[in-house]
């Protein structure tokens, strides 16, 4: 049966199609987009099917690559946690792929579309692979694929993007090296690279200095990749200068995948008690994240450039996830996991709005949003929904993850972080209502838009369906995830928690 191979195919298919797209692009550029979309659509199907199977069968799917049994060969594992994240990634990337063509207006970039698609698919490959893999070293290689394509794509952005990409690369390599070092430390102490195997071997060694330092390096490596506070400095530059279509993919997904890896490392590879009882890891993380959230929120307040502001918000949102992880209890972790997926959709909808406005007005400055709602009602409505979700207004999904986070933090007694979370959500409110005020209540000067007055019945906002569908879809997902939150949490996320937190 082909279904049993989905864990491998979901990674291999985009990889193989990326080669095909590369070659086909030399001869027929037109064929690239259908190829890419078909592939990503299949990925969505694969991921949904796998999640469905995990839910119905109630046990994780194991897949042995090369037919070798786990500690010797590489193994893919799909359980509730990464099945859920996989669906998020593949769905987001499908619609980001749809928007990609539309987002590229630059003639110089247009001639490079095939390469663009190739790197886009490689990026998706990397992200999906990181999520699905059950081998720590394989994770490193996939992380590098995702990072490399990210560096290259980011460097294609607007002025200064190449330097931002270079900085990102220095940081990213540092992060990857730290992760590799951590893996080496685990290997020298246990002799294994498989996550499940490691989780079995490690508990005896928790007092070893090697393991502690290895853990620190793993964490700092992941921290760099996910843009955690003291090492987030690469993030705002690179994501805000990247081409708009790409930041829709990169900004929501890359950091969230990092957060996923963080949860895997802390609670799957290591037993939760390692970071809660034996060493004060969660306390430290929570403290660092608190400072980071404050810092990022304040800096976001200082930005006039919308995309840059969103980038700082990402840093803050990563801090939220870390809060959830660091509370290390039932609700906190539910919040963290739920927030990973929620934040993907929230950020995707906001970044796509920023991208569309950037393409239409030529700037992502806040002034570009002046009086936007008259010209682009749908776009401004999507902005509204995304903003509400980040602020945490109930029917949208942002509220629910925040609710679980608050519950978890109260239960863990982390009142400092809780205060920070609340202050930061207040700052978010200020930020977004400033933006909404500009969008809805300020009048634009004449000639600020390139949009014509064309008003055909099936054209909203003068955008083509390639931008409209993703935008509306992301926004509706933000609401849908909110409404279905109870079901999702009850049927998926609870089972995704580590055994210690199931209670």
């Amino acid at each position, binding site marked *: 049966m082909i279904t049993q191979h989905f864990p491998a195919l979901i990674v291999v298919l985009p*990889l193989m199609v990326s080669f095909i797209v590369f070659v086909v692009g030399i001869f027929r550029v037109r064929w690239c987009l259908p190829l890419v979309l078909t592939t990503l659509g299949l990925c969505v199907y694969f991921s949904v099917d796998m999640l469905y199977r995990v839910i119905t069968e109630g046990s994780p799917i194991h897949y042995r690559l090369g037919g070798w049994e786990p500690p010797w060969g590489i193994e893919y594992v799909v359980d509730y946690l990464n099945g859920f994240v996989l669906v998020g990634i593949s769905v987001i990337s499908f619609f980001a792929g749809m928007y990609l063509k539309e987002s590229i207006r630059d003639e110089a970039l247009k001639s490079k579309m095939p390469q663009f698609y190739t790197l886009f698919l490689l990026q998706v490959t990397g992200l999906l692979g990181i999520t699905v893999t059950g081998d720590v070293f394989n994770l490193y290689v996939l992380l590098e694929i995702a990072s490399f394509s990210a560096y290259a794509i980011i460097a294609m952005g607007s002025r200064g993007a190449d330097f931002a990409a270079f900085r990102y690369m220095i940081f990213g390599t540092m992060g990857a090296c730290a992760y590799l070092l951590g893996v080496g430390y685990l290997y020298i102490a246990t002799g294994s690279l498989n996550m499940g195997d490691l989780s079995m071997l490690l508990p005896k060694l928790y007092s070893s200095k090697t393991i502690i330092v290895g853990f620190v390096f793993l964490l700092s490596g992941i921290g760099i990749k996910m843009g955690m506070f003291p090492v987030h400095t690469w993030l705002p530059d690179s994501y805000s200068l990247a081409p708009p279509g790409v930041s829709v993919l990169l900004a929501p997904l890359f950091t969230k995948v990092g957060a996923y890896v963080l949860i895997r490392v802390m609670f799957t590879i290591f037993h939760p008690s390692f970071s809660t009882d034996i060493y004060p890891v969660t306390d430290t993380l929570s403290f660092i994240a608190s400072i980071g959230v404050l810092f990022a929120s304040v800096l976001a307040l200082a930005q006039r450039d919308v995309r840059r502001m969103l980038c700082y918000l990402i840093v803050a949102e990563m801090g939220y996830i870390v809060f959830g992880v660091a509370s290390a209890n039932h609700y906190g972790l539910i919040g963290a996991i739920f927030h990973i997926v929620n934040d993907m959709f929230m950020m995707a909808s906001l970044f796509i709005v920023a991208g569309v406005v950037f393409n239409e007005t030529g700037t992502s400055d806040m002034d570009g949003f002046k009086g936007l709602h008259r010209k682009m009602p749908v776009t401004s409505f999507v902005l509204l929904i995304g903003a509400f979700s980040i602020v945490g207004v109930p029917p949208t999904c942002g509220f629910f993850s925040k609710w679980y986070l608050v519950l978890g933090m109260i239960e863990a007694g982390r009142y400092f972080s809780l205060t920070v979370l609340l202050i930061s959500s207040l700052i978010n409110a200020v930020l977004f209502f400033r933006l909404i005020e500009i969008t809805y209540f300020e009048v634009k000067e004449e000639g600020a838009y390139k949009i014509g007055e064309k008003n055909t019945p099936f054209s909203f906002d003068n955008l083509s369906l390639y931008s409209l569908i993703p935008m509306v879809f992301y926004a509706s997902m933000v609401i849908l995830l909110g409404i279905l939150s109870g079901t999702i949490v009850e049927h998926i996320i609870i089972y995704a928690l580590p055994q210690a937190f199931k209670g």
Partner: protein
Amino acid sequence: MNRTVAFFVTMLTGLLLIYSTLDFPPWGSPNQPGSLHVSPRYIEKTLEETKVPNAVTSVLADYRGYDTMFETSVIFTAGVAVMMLLRRKKDG
């Protein structure tokens, strides 16, 4: 970055690393966990299972062949990236 900060961070990293070496198994010891858990199978079974005497090749290409595929893809990614970033049309 500020030199003093960098120096401090470097020293901290160095101290951390040296601290960790205290618990390392001695260099070259045949009894370290790294050589005992997974790798014996590669050495003992490579001929039997793959007919390849070079254990490195058999691990690289078969036992952990999946890693190698991505390794090659990394190279490919780099190639495409460089091509995209640098190359431009003759008349562009």
